[in-house]
């Protein structure tokens, strides 16, 4: 077992690169060392994937889900039960970056296929990921590339590829958008068997050479008879692309940045950190894993504890993982999907291609009440296996003073760092019933632990990752 600081640092890593971990798991990972934990996260193939056979045997309605929220529930099952947390966290990262929504696609299984593509390619070459994205049927339909034809271009995909998915505003011209769009003509989806009444069938990417504009194009200063892959080759070699991706990774994994639409006029909070990530991109030829290795091993990451507001998905899934009551197949994963939506993040259905606004914008009056009630309701329930394990762990420490009681609870739910005001409130509560004892007051003490955990979950500090 590592020391308290080691465990606290691992807790930080697992909250950011995953969805949190139990204290026992943190202790185990800390014993192996921080760098080893980073490499385990970066190499998910070292661990078995979620057993999809078990998932679909017991929850057959999740396979090719006929409608939301079942597809959302399917993903939440995987996020909670995965032994490859960064693989799922990257899928969430790419979903937030390449936002694609069921409001238009209206094909839940296609969105699930897109998430699976993110699992497969999300830690590899950014170029390959963009090629896969350009050929992803849900994305093609979402951004109308099926309507992008030889002689009659639709600029939606070409524009968002540059504006939202790779370079950012201010780094290309309107002509570049038109030329990129010409290069992606003929990239479409084939017709598919209609969804009803025999369940879902899948789209397939289809390249139609007769509908492709094969003429010369000038894009970002390069001229040639470009096809879509050529455009992506040029895009991934732009300094703006490395910087844009670096800033997104920083915003998602390190600390909240200003909202994305302002990035062309607002500098990063930590330019040096962005420079280091850009250097990792350049040195690795655009390898996402290399960028993340730099990020997770950096001081700017290690020192950024509790500086990001948890997204609804992070809050809901992290809390459920800690409570342990959604381990394996069971009914009710849809309730967690609904909870994410109520808190402002309906998975697989972002509000627009601009995705969700993050950071402090996750929090408004209604969302905060839901977040607090959800987390406090779960962590206060000592019947849940993960909460019960916390109670057992605290009980094993014997009688505790109010200070020790508060510290023990904070340690086992994070370890969580809190401000002075929160600490004062928690201590007030702890002192009101005196020493925590496990003799004849055991039943009462269990309730006190549950109440303390609920209070912690309701604190301002718990809202941060």
């Amino acid at each position, binding site marked *: 077992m590592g020391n308290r600081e080691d465990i606290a640092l691992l807790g930080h890593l697992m909250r950011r690169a995953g969805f949190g971990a139990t204290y026992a798991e943190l202790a185990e990972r800390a014993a192996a060392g921080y760098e080893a934990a980073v490499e385990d996260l970066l190499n998910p193939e070292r661990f078995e994937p979620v057993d999809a*056979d*078990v998932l*679909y*045997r*017991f*929850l*057959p*309605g*999740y*396979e*090719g*889900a*006929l409608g939301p929220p*079942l597809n959302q*529930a399917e993903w939440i099952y995987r996020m909670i039960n995965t032994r490859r947390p960064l693989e799922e966290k990257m899928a969430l990262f790419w979903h937030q970056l390449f936002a694609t929504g069921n409001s238009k696609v209206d094909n839940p299984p296609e969105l699930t296929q897109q998430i699976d593509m993110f699992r497969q390619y999300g830690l590899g070459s950014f170029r390959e990921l963009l090629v896969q994205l350009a050929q992803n049927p849900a994305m093609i339909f979402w951004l109308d590339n099926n309507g992008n034809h030889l002689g009659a271009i639709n600029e939606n995909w070409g524009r968002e590829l540059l504006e939202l998915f790779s370079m950012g505003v201010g780094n290309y011209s309107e002509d570049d958008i038109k030329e990129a769009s010409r290069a992606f003509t003929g990239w479409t989806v*084939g*017709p*598919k*068997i*209609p969804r*009803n*009444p*025999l*369940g879902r*069938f899948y789209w397939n990417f289809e390249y139609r050479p007769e509908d492709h504009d094969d003429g010369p194009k000038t894009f970002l200063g390069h001229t040639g008879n470009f096809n879509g892959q050529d455009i992506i080759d040029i895009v991934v070699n732009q300094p703006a692309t490395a910087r844009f991706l670096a800033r997104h990774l920083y915003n998602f994994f390190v600390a909240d940045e200003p909202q994305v639409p302002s990035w062309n006029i607002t500098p990063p909070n930590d330019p040096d950190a962005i420079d280091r990530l850009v250097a990792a991109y350049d040195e690795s030829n655009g390898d996402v894993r290399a960028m993340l290795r730099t990020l997770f091993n950096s001081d700017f990451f290690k020192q950024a504890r509790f500086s990001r507001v948890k997204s609804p998905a992070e809050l809901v899934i992290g809390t459920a993982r800690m409570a342990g009551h959604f381990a394996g197949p*069971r*009914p*009710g*994963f*849809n309730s967690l999907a609904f909870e994410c939506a109520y808190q402002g993040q309906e998975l697989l259905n972002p509000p627009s291609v601009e995705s969700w606004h993050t950071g402090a914008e996750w929090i408004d009056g209604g969302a905060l009440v839901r977040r607090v009630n959800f987390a406090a309701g779960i962590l206060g329930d000592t019947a849940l296996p993960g909460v019960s394990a916390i109670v057992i762990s605290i009980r094993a420490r014997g009688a505790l003073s109010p200070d020790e009681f508060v510290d023990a609870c904070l340690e086992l739910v994070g370890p969580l760092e809190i401000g002075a005001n929160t600490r004062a409130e928690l201590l007030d509560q702890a002192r009101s019933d005196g020493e925590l004892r496990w003799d004849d007051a055991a039943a009462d003490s269990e309730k006190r632990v549950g109440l303390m955990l609920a209070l912690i979950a309701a604190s301002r500090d718990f809202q941060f990752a």
Partner: protein
Amino acid sequence: MLTTVADGRVFDYSYCLGMYGMSGQGFWAPQDFALADDDTMFVISRGAEELGQRISKVTLDHQFLGQFGAFGRGDGQFIWPRSIALDDAGAIYASDDFLNRISIFDQDGAFQHAWGEAGDAKGQLNAPSGMTFDGSGNLLVVDAMNHRVQRFTKKGKYLGGFGRQGAADGEFNLPWGVCTDDAGNVYVADWKNNRVQKFDADGNYLMKFEASPSGVGDLHGPSSVAVDSEGDVYVTDWGSHRLQVYAPDGRFIATLVGDAQQPSPWTQTYIDANPEIIKARRRVNLEPEWRFRRPVAVKVDRNDRIMVLEAARHRIQIYDKVKDYEEHPLNL
């Protein structure tokens, strides 16, 4: 192929029955079905989360007669309906592998009683999956997460059981479906071990059905098993979306992959009522629609008709085992 000829057997595709439906006519993620003597059929739908759980009463000629059961924990309700069996008096037994109970209904769907207790002690249940009645009128229940088969009276009194977790002969890993043959032997779809095991009526291991050393006839998550009047064994290969057929001695005979080229009348009615769907269907290769998708249950009736239920296509495909087939001239 609408007709599959292999090793002296002929399997002739006949027709299909069913379609997707959240309620009423149709099924949703159906898991099992049972045939009554009058060709009435009871199909148990699992649905998803709080919707779609029910038992549908239909006929083999596509009449929808009604449904009973719903989501819930109360009498006659289900959380995870899984399998269904009829006793010799026609009573309907339905398992729920979340509630760990067996619910009994009459043929009109009226709830009679239920039994079952969660746990891993003898007679307790953890995820009851396939069920079938033995020749003595007792119920064999595959106790999936306890990796065993248990035998109960109709009232739920524990009579015995066999199997434990493992991969050796006579052991199971998350078994699923079960059936018996005319001699009283018991066949169990040993899901995670990718095989079917055969036992005598007392639970003594006899043999197994699995891939030959060359890999022919392999199974990937068998979900259900049935035996015809000649002893041939049919296995729904859930993981590979096909039906594997074996001779009584375990020799692999044939694979059926689904042949529903003609939609069921329910499906056709739905298509005919939706012009956009008609247009869309005329532009695509429909072959994926013909094929099995997640076959979960297979039954053989008294006429050796082979019926395969597909969870992901919400229908049953029916084949005839033709006994008097004469080859056509090959030089036609």
